[in-house]
């Protein structure tokens, strides 16, 4: 136990020592991503917008479903959150292997790679929020006092993202199958969460499974807080506890295996 605490202290101290590097890496990834790309940050909102239109057609014209707010608003909110989750993980999966030269030649805390991938996705998330705000104004969604919950929801969301990102980056370094498996997993996962349809009325084993998904309360919390002016669901508490536990566990595992990266990459 004492060793674990010492490790945690070392991990945090290293992050503070190398904070400039985290900033530079994030800046590098942002610049490189949008260099020679005409639309620049437009790409951050393009994907969720296209998907919103697509699912709006499906779920209002083909098979209409009941949503608590106008469907496009409902869907964009879900897709905006999911898109940032997915892109953070996609960049993290390859973050160590695509920087193999750095991993095998220079020492610094390797967590920087997945962490900077997450920070990049946070920037995309902020850009995407502009579209959400526009849609909220368009659909006359009033701003309520429950918006104060937003920072907490955001923290739970990104702590959970970081936990998954660390595990994926680590696993892909040792087993390159992970990045292929990830593509399958993320598709299934998206439809197992209330991204483009509400899951609160789903019954039985399937309903239970959907509610066990940690992303379910996170997505529902965003919608409650932003669109419905109501407090987040109680399940967010459980998701927060799980996210924190998973994050600390994943980081510890990452940290303890870090020194083998140069040999295995």
């Amino acid at each position: 136990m004492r060793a674990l605490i010492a490790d945690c202290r070392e991990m945090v101290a290293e992050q503070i020592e190398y904070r400039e590097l985290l900033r530079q890496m994030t800046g590098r990834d942002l610049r490189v991503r949008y260099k020679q790309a005409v639309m620049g940050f437009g790409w951050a909102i393009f994907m969720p917008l296209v998907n919103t239109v697509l699912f709006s057609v499906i779920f209002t014209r083909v098979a209409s479903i009941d949503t608590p707010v106008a469907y496009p608003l409902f869907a964009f909110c879900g897709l905006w959150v999911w898109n940032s989750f997915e892109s953070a993980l996609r960049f993290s999966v390859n973050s160590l292997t695509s920087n193999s030269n750095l991993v095998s030649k220079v020492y610094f805390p390797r967590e920087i790679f997945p962490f900077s991938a997450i920070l990049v996705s946070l920037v995309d998330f902020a850009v995407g929020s502009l579209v959400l705000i526009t849609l909220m104004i368009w659909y006359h969604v009033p701003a309520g006092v429950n918006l104060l919950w937003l920072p907490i929801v955001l923290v739970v969301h990104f702590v959970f993202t970081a936990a998954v990102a660390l595990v994926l980056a680590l696993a892909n370094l040792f087993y390159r199958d992970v990045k292929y498996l990830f593509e399958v997993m993320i598709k299934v996962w998206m439809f197992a969460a209330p991204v483009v349809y509400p899951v609160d009325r789903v019954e039985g084993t399937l309903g239970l499974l959907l509610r066990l998904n940690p992303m379910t309360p996170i997505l529902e919390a965003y919608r409650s807080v932003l669109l419905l002016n109501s407090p987040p669901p109680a399940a967010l508490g459980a998701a927060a506890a799980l996210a924190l536990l998973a994050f600390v566990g994943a980081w510890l595992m990452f940290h303890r295996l870090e020194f083998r990266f140069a040999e295995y990459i």
Partner: protein
Amino acid sequence: MTPAVVFDDVSKKFRRGERHDSLRDLVPALFSRAWRRRRADALGDQEFWAVRDVSFAVSSGEGLAIIGPNGAGKSTILKLLSRILKPTRGACAVHGRVGALIEVAAGFHPDLTGRENVFLQGAIMGMTRPEIVRRFDEIVEFASLEQFVDTPVKRYSSGMNARLGFSIAAHLNPDVLIIDEILSVGDMQFQQKCIDRLISFKSQGAAIVFVSHNLQAVASYFDRGLLMDQGHCRCIGSASEAVAAYASAAAGRKTVASHARAGIVSVSLRDRNDAVVSEAAPGDELSLIVTYRFSGDRTHNLIFGMYVTDSGMGTRLYNASAGDLGLRWTPPPGPGQVTIKFRFRVNLLRGAYHINAHVSDPLIHECLDRREPAAYVTVHEDFSVQGSTNLDVRCTVLASEPGSSDIDEPVTVGDTREAHD
């Protein structure tokens, strides 16, 4: 005062070859890797010691050079020191700020400009932003890249890349500097600048650990030397002692144990009349006739070569393979033999030389068989020119002024051979 670098009885184990782990083992393997204690001392299947029981310490203001043949464990030591690898056994401690130049431009991103990369690489090496801002102009000036600072690094030449990389590292002001063969980058002028920089670091109290194949630089710029061979420390002492030990070890290992894949069957040195010789005069034409055998196993990887060394110092004067020399010959499949004739002119001066033959596989960095010496040749000459190679210099007087006190009498020499001793 505690030494800046302490390497205490360190061993490092590596695995050879590929691992074939299946995804099924993924989760249990990750957990067991994180929490299991490994048997430190036993060598498993496919494992080998890259570094074995090596100890040394370097104090502030001291320079240690690590020398040795390829695969001796030199770079592993540097990676252990810079915390990229963790020792299997033993302890390695470095006190103070570490500047590790294992590969100077490792952090560069090709799409970013020189300026952006200075900030990135600086951060990778552990500099803070204000520090980089303060030293930015110095860094660019040292690398002489003022005009290219806003050009993407992908348009840089490899020399420019290396210069910028070294320059960033040189402005880190580390307490301990770890360098892997840095002097091979850049032109002569830049190399001199690097050496000057290292010396000034050292005089300011930095400890330097340096890997090099440049024995001359090692002997002249470093205080201490460590000779590594196959993971073991063979000699630790003054830099010149280590260099001498390296030279004598190389001389002692003249014949490699003959390998099953390929070997040398016979060698002879002949003159133009096909007579076996051991003496020659400058300008003579000789032939080294070597018969090699091969088993048929990866024969296309083999190179068949010859080289010439000075018999006293063992200095390699010439080295070439049949392929380098333009021989177009592909070995037939299966086992066989080939006899190759290397014809050459003796552009050597008076002295004793070894003419040697080897067969190697460059892909595995292994010399499969070597005959050293395969033949001796003593070169006789009857005029006094010193050195080892015959450059066939001709000299003539272009102008001479009568009455000048410096020149007593004009001499005209058409050929060096006319100046008898």
